[in-house]
């Protein structure tokens, strides 16, 4: 196959503003990879984008069944988008199960690309189809384009050196090639990737390149595919961009925090979906002096982190709900010892094992109150994959400045999805270091005497002479830190620890209001950011007045939040839980919030929020 075939003989493509595409197939079909590569090309091309991977809880659920379907959705646009889109405009279905599981999401009239080879009796039966939907009127509402992808792939790769059934493995590259044709994406970034990953001389590398090109060429040569589309680069602010996945951004933010705090990073963690990749990313970066410790369980994860904190390291532990439960006791110890630490909770569907690979925001009240006794901690949350870098950095800053564990809340959607990130100038990141304690000769070291402003206590670490001291979980004297059973001291220490959170509050920025008016404000936190902002923007475009406030800090809440919320007639709080932030806001400000809760294991959809906004606005009007 010569390169000429790739010369574009393209009819003028239709220019569109944005498109939502979903690649869907069996877990073994490589849809995550196809989607990721399509995303990468689009990023290089200059589009704005947002992605949403979705995979089963099993490593590999039974092939060909609904339970085994894996998908990857990407939204690409020539404007500044915020969500991976509510419903795909185009669906790639590699087999009947993928079609069945995803069809209802496809917009009516949408483009449906199917791998016709997979629609045999066995697969149809596994997916629960009595008859072949390609043969009847089931798909009449869509533009269906079929291609015998398996046959074509096999044929294309026959000289690669890959043999037998293995040849079929490249069919995702065929699909990717075809999609690149239809949406006018460059294939060079994919070729580069294949080269780096496999080398273009290896059988696998060759097969993937051949399949990719074959898919692209199939588009060129097959008339059916001659209606193509293009999406112009988005007018993103100038700068250098990378496409970043949430958990990677979190890991990088933590490393950057450690660098700027001038502390070696220590992470003690136990693998758990969807948090594991933070540990994995940190383990990869030992040249930053990162010590990564895979503990025997979550208790040891936070335990080792606590030990490292005492030893003067930047201590991190990462987990998801069930693991956070196990960390509760030691977290309370870290709180009373007032040692800095960042605890990352990547929320997933609960309760119990729940829906481990899905998104949920249902650990918020647990983070707030999930410790015995009065045990207040700062809670900070991230709104988008790239935001995670900044938030992780900020969590480190708070931990070190205030000598406290900080809970950083993210979730399974942020963890695994990606967006273009304009790279910050890392050399301009602030110095967030805080010197270790020091004393004059002969002076007594008092580990619980505090900085008057931050209420942080001094941090003296083993190896420093003259400041030997003991910390423990029993109540401690307000200055010496020795065990104290004194009733008044206890009460005063409870208040002091609460006041430390207040002290932090005073230093934090006020919330900003996006929008104006006084009818309705939508209050959100975490990964619902994109959906809320999109919904609010759409409503605003109709001329209605509605505002959006999104929280980064949840404990303490921003100082102006009460006043801001009270200035609106309605406060709508959309959450992927049964109303947890809502409950906090109600208790704090006695405001009768409207909770909007959708807990489907999926990101919030802008459209549903939009509907809810109109419902409230119209009620308001009619009442």
């Amino acid at each position: 196959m010569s390169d000429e075939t790739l010369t574009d003989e393209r009819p003028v493509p239709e220019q569109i503003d944005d498109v939502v595409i979903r690649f869907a197939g069996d877990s073994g079909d490589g849809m995550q990879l196809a989607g990721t590569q399509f995303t990468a090309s689009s990023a290089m091309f200059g589009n704005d984008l947002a992605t949403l991977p979705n995979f089963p809880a099993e490593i590999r659920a039974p092939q060909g069944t609904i339970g085994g379907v894996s998908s990857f959705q990407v939204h690409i646009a020539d404007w500044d988008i915020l969500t991976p889109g509510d419903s795909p405009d185009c669906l790639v279905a590699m087999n009947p199960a993928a079609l069945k599981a995803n069809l209802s999401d496809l917009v009516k009239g949408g483009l449906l690309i199917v791998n016709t080879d997979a629609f045999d009796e066995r697969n149809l039966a596994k997916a629960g189809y009595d008859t072949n939907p390609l043969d009847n009127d089931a798909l009449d509402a869509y533009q269906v384009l079929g291609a015998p992808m398996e046959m074509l792939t096999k044929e294309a790769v026959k000289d690669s050196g890959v043999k037998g059934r293995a040849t079929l493995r490249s069919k995702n590259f065929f699909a990717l090639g075809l999609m690149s044709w239809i949406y006018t994406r460059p294939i060079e970034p994919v070729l580069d990737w294949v080269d780096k990953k496999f080398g273009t001389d290896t059988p696998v590398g060759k097969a993937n390149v051949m399949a990719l090109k074959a898919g692209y060429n199939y588009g060129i040569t097959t008339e059916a595919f001659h209606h193509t589309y293009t999406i112009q680069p988005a007018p993103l602010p100038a700068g250098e961009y990378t496409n970043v996945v949430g958990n990677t951004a979190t890991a990088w933010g933590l490393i950057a925090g450690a660098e700027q705090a001038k502390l070696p990073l220590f992470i003690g963690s136990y693998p758990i979906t969807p948090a594991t990749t933070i540990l994995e990313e940190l383990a990869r970066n030992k040249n930053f002096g990162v010590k990564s410790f895979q503990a025997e369980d979550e208790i040891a994860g936070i335990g080792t982190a606590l030990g490292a904190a005492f030893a003067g390291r930047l201590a991190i532990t990462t987990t998801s709900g069930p693991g956070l439960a196990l960390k509760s006791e030691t977290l309370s110890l870290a709180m009373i010892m007032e040692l800095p630490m960042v605890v990352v909770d990547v929320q997933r569907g609960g309760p119990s094992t729940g829906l481990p690979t899905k998104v949920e925001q249902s650990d918020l009240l647990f983070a707030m109150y999930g410790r015995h006794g009065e045990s207040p901690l700062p809670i900070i949350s991230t709104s988008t994959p790239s935001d995670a870098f900044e938030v992780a950095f900020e969590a480190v800053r708070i931990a070190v400045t205030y000598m406290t564990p900080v809970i950083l809340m993210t979730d399974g959607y942020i963890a695994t999805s990606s967006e273009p990130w304009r790279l910050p100038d890392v050399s301009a990141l602030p110095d967030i270091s805080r010197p270790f304690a020091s004393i004059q000769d002969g002076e007594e070291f008092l580990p619980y005497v505090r900085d008057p402003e931050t209420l942080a206590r001094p941090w003296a670490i083993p190896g420093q002479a003259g400041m030997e001291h003991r910390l423990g979980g029993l109540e401690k004297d307000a200055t010496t830190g020795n065990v104290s059973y004194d009733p008044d001291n206890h009460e005063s220490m409870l208040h002091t620890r609460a006041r430390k959170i207040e002290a932090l509050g005073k230093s934090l920025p006020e919330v900003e209001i996006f929008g104006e008016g006084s009818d309705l404000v939508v209050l959100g936190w975490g990964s619902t950011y994109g959906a809320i902002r999109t919904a609010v923007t759409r409503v605003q475009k109709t001329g209605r007045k509605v505002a959006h406030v999104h929280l980064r800090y949840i404990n303490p809440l921003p100082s102006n939040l009460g006043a801001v919320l009270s200035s609106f007639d309605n406060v709508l709080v959309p959450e992927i839980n049964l109303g947890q932030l809502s409950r906090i806001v109600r208790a704090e400000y006695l405001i009768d919030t409207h909770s909007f809760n959708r807990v489907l294991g999926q990101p919030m959809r802008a459209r549903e929020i939009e509907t809810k906004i109109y419902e409230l606005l119209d009620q308001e009007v009619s009442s």
Partner: protein
Amino acid sequence: MTDTARYTRSDFQTDQEVRWCPGCGDYTILAAVQSFLATLDVDREKHVFVSGIGCSSRFPYYMNTYGLHTVHGRAPAIATGIATANPELTVWVITGDGDGLSIGGNHLIHALRRNVNLNIIMFNNQIYGLTKGQYSPTSEVGKRTKTSPMGSIDRPFNPVSLALGSEASFVARTIDMDRNHTIEMLDAMFKHEGAGLLEIYQNCNVFNDKAFLDLTDKNSRDSNRIWIRDGEPITFGADNEYGVVVDGEGARVVEVAKAGHRNIHVHDAGAPNPAIAFALSRLSYGPYGPTPLGIFRNVDVPSYGHEMENQIAEAQAAKGPGEMAKLIRSRGTWIVD
């Protein structure tokens, strides 16, 4: 141990009142540890004592070093964090039979298998002292306590066997009353690289008095303390009339005269294979009858803390020190102008 000691015992004492019951075995262990540290040429500020919860776990408050009194059972994990974060420190774990073997059993066995650079001292009084006398994982079957009013039906752990089954590279046992032997064991553990476990039979005179009578009573102790010493044949008794042989059925006590001196097992604490150390640990099922005291195993294995540092050095040598600006570009970038 140096003879121009930089420290005296009092350098390791704190101003906190020692809050154990009068007569508790914990006092003698505290004194032994303080005296021992004073003989070392290790800066005081480099010692860290980490404990869980229990009577024994109050220990760090009485040591004028860095210290943590943590939560029940988690000391080995927390100490692992300290020791791997900074392998220059000398990290001691103080735990009890409840703290270390009941709630904390998992962290203990993992610290041992990983060979984390820790010196773990387990105060085994075969009872929960602090919670006022419930049976522990080392209490004998049939023991009557408040939670086992008809006698415990739990078969106890043998801490030495458990440690050896957990790949421990250093395991020893001593008894609170024998200060010199305690110090000898502490010294050997301190010199050993990586994780060490020292089990100390410790008398709780309030809730489990005289549990170790076989080993401490004047009349019985000589015939019940089996001293095991590296490189020496294992004999004991007032006149070394007893000895230990090891064969295809395990280890057992014999009369030396009958068995013949050349058949007496010569102890090799440094044997790479822990099988014989394990066999020795089975000579008694607790501090009843002839019971081995001394170092069961002492082999060289690189410590976890240093292995971790080595990987960092290697990574830096291979990739150069980390650069943030490079890292965030590592997944490919594009420019928008």
